[in-house]
């Protein structure tokens, strides 16, 4: 190989390396900043501690962990069936024309900045819940609804792609054996698209857990262990987002420590997504 080609290859390697470097740096800085607080508090106290009072040095993020889990689960429970249903409808049932109309809509849904979802949640969803349940409105439910909407495009698009990636032959094969279309969907198409749908759900979950601004605007951010889906709650991201502006010193480090937990959460999800087999079959 010629020298110029070699040099360029090395340059390209550096480009590629930056991604790794990025992750390493992110991990390093978040850990460097946050670890001392966890260390000082004790990892168990930090994770299971039920009181968050940073101004007097009490850092327990259990409520936020629960908050994240509740809000995310809620979003999945609402978003996954709708998302997958919509994906199935678009990929299998809708006429190409209809599909062609709906598709950009879903892309738009994906492109809308999270702040706008937050705005909408704050001005529409929260008051609605307040009215219906006669409570404060800010709640896990509100967060879940908005997050469900936010992860819909992720779930719809990836599921739809993986359903569409199921070879047409499977469907024809099933129909040719005398199955109904719905039988073909349930028994052949969805199982074949299973791994894609699963990664759609996991990616949606990642998006839900990671969302910050919209959540801050609608869940109420209280630092207690939520009692029901109508309770207010603070998520891990919310905890960082809402206090980062005012924190300093150890308080700020405690927020980085929250970041560590979030980071680990996300990494576990990433690993899970990676473990899902990519191809139909094996």
């Amino acid at each position, binding site marked *: 190989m010629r020298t110029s080609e070699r040099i360029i290859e090395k340059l390209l390697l550096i480009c590629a390396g930056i991604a790794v470097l990025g992750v390493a740096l992110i991990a390093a800085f978040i850990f460097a900043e946050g670890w001392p607080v966890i260390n000082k508090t004790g990892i168990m106290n930090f994770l299971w501690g039920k009181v*968050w*009072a940073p101004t007097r040095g009490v850092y327990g993020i259990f409520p936020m962990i629960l908050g994240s889990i509740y809000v995310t689960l809620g979003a999945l429970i609402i978003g996954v069936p709708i998302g997958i249903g919509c994906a199935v409808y678009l990929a299998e049932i809708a006429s190409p024309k209809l599909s062609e109309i709906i598709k950009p809509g879903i892309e738009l849904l994906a492109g809308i900045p999270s702040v706008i979802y937050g705005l909408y949640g704050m001005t529409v969803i*929260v008051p609605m819940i307040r009215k219906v349940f006669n409570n*404060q409105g800010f709640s896990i439910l509100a967060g879940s609804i908005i997050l469900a909407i936010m992860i819909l495009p992720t779930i719809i698009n990836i599921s739809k792609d993986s359903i569409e990636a199921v070879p047409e032959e499977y469907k024809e094969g099933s129909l040719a054996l005398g199955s109904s279309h719905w039988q073909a969907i349930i028994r052949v198409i969805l199982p074949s698209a299973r791994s894609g749908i699963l990664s759609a759900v996991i990616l949606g979950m990642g998006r839900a857990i990671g969302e910050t601004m919209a959540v801050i605007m609608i869940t109420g951010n209280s630092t207690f262990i939520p009692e029901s889906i109508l309770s207010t709650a603070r998520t891990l991201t919310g905890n960082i987002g809402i206090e980062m*502006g*005012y924190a*300093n010193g150890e308080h*700020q480090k405690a927020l980085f420590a929250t970041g560590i937990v979030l980071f680990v959460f996300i990494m576990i999800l990433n690993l899970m997504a990676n473990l899902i087999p990519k191809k139909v079959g094996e």
Partner: protein
Amino acid sequence: GCSGQPAQNEPTPEQPKEPEKQSIVINGSTSVQPLAEELSNAFKSKNPNATIDIQGGGSGVGIKSAEDGVVDIGMSSRDLKPEEKSLKEFKIAIDGIAVIVHPENGVKDLTVEQLRKIYTGQITNWKEVGGKDAKITVVTREEGSGTRGAFIELVKLEVTEGDKKVDKTLASAITQGSTGAVMITVAGDANAIGFASFGSAKDKTDIKLINIDGAECSEENIATGTYKISRPFLMLTKDEPTGLAKAFLDFILSAEGQEIVAENNYLKAVK
């Protein structure tokens, strides 16, 4: 206040290299920030060459940054603690902390004691304080906020337990990241109670200001101390201000500057 940026250190933009400093950076309390913006706009219209960057950060940040000298001026929305007293402090305004409820809320008066009980969860229903039978929605600011700091101090939500001061605020209280968010929350919830900078809250029609211990929340009562929950807005410098910083501070404290303070519903610090 604006949600603003994290505190610590000196997020100071690079200084132009001219000898006469035409640019200063201010950060700190987000409650003071809107007022500071107004003042700086007025100042800049008179001194077109001047650049003033105003960042949020919170009172704590303002105090620390000023101490570290990484900003030209720090802002605080609460009194300095004794250990912070080394700073040059300029009281530019006085702000009440208005306790706010939904306009339809029947309750008009609360005592500091009732307020304390509400915020610690001892009183949970409006009927206990003379209102209708409804659960109280408590709204507070986040930990670290100067407004919250002043409020818990004034309402005595802070109790000393052993050698520590413990903030007894209800953990289930809705926590909002800014004055505006608190107001929006209260405006939207008939059963909510919250607190916010008087200057920001005064003109709002979708919230109602509560009398504390019988005193109406007004400039007058705040000025006289009849209304008990108030705090100063401070501008802080490490050393004697010079150059543009001095010019700006002078402008603020001038009659013209103080007029702007008043226009913005804060009490003039300099009569």
